């Protein structure tokens, strides 16, 4: 049969193309992962698991649909399943926590702190609100793609988005974030 591995194709051209497409999506996967998972190491772990899953389940990818949306769906499901497994977000902080003064930071801080407040506020949203904000406002996915990624009707996407934005705005107004206060 010849030397070991002689018959294993090194990397079929088709596989190389798919790998290259994944590599193009990596920055966006990392951004999305960071915005929903918060922690940078956890986010990159999610991206790594997403790549493994995508390569395994590649035959399930509908090539008429955007690759990024398919990858986001995988990543998002891994994240949600991870939450369920670890139950690490048992207590979801709400806007009331901020009103009570927990972690309150005085307004008029430098921009760095303002930015941190935004990511903190995003993390305080329940996961199903956080992900819809991340997908629409940050990743700029269409409502249709978001509905597919989350596996819910478009109307649900819109009502979640509306509520999520209300919550986010309320939190940031309470904490006096200059970035969100500034008009224009």
């Amino acid at each position, binding site marked *: *049969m*010849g030397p*070991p591995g002689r*018959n*294993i*194709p090194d*990397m*079929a*051209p*088709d*596989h190389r193309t798919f*790998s290259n497409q*994944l*590599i193009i999506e*990596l*920055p*966006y996967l*990392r*951004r999305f992962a*960071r*915005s929903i998972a918060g922690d940078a190491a956890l986010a*990159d772990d999610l*991206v*790594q698991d997403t*790549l*493994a899953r995508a*390569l*395994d389940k*590649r*035959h*399930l990818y509908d090539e008429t649909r955007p690759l990024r949306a398919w990858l986001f769906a995988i990543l998002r499901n891994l994240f949600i399943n991870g939450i369920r497994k670890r139950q690490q977000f048992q207590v979801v902080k709400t806007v009331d926590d901020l009103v009570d003064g927990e972690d309150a930071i005085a307004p008029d801080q430098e921009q760095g702190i*303002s*930015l941190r407040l*935004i*990511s903190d506020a*995003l993390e305080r949203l329940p996961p199903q609100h956080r992900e819809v*904000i*991340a997908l*629409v*406002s*940050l990743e*700029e996915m*269409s*409502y249709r793609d978001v509905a597919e990624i989350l596996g819910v009707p478009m109307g649900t996407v*819109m*009502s979640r*988005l*509306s509520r999520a*934005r209300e919550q*986010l*705005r309320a939190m940031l107004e309470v904490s006096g*974030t200059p*970035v*969100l206060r*500034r*008009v*224009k």
Partner: protein
Amino acid sequence: MMAENDRMDAWTLHAFADGELEAHERDDVERRLAQEPDARSLLDAVRREKAALHAVYDPILNEAVPPALLAAARTAPQARRAPWMAIAASAVFLTLGASVGWMGARVSGPDELEMMSKRALVAHEVYANDAKHSVEVSAAESDQLQTWLTKRIGAKVVIPDLADRGFTFVGGRLLAAEERPAGQLLFEDESKHKVAVFVTLNANHRDVPMQMEQRGNLWGCYWLDGKFGLAVTGDLPKEEVLALAQDVYDQLEKS
């Protein structure tokens, strides 16, 4: 609580901010904005929210991607799978012949893959248990069978050795698969259990990991590698059909 009308308005404004509206709807919103300060305020808040999120998270787009992630994206599926899954992507016991023209039929999608599995299971049912004519060419003429199938399928077919599992080669036949020729190689053990290897060309070089399907008393595992679509079927427990696949995989690893 907002009134239903207000909620609809808020949805429209969100859709406007997110670029989801048609041109005429956008015009309508823009007209209304002039008279509705609350709507302007909500729209401003959404726009600031977007700008803020981009300010926080966009720098990630410019970060160097960790090498581990690049490596993961480049990893062929078989390298990460459990050993018995690795069989799916390797050429195992069938090796490509010298550039025989393998144009023509393709295995190009999950549906075709499922059809291949079904064909393999049905072919097993139809032929393997036929008392007199289970094979077209018997094991005694293995060389001729191998040459014939190689020529018709378009890539070099090598008959696997499953003797370690107690299966001896009975013979094989050419099948008319849906779009192209296929071969069936039949094996039998002492208690008359049958194992069939169904082989077709995978002209698209798609790699699809091994999957299992049951039909009646048969289990089949099927997959695509760079050159071949393959299915192993047997009137055996699922685990034994898998074990046969693993056995073949191990043979390759040690060769």
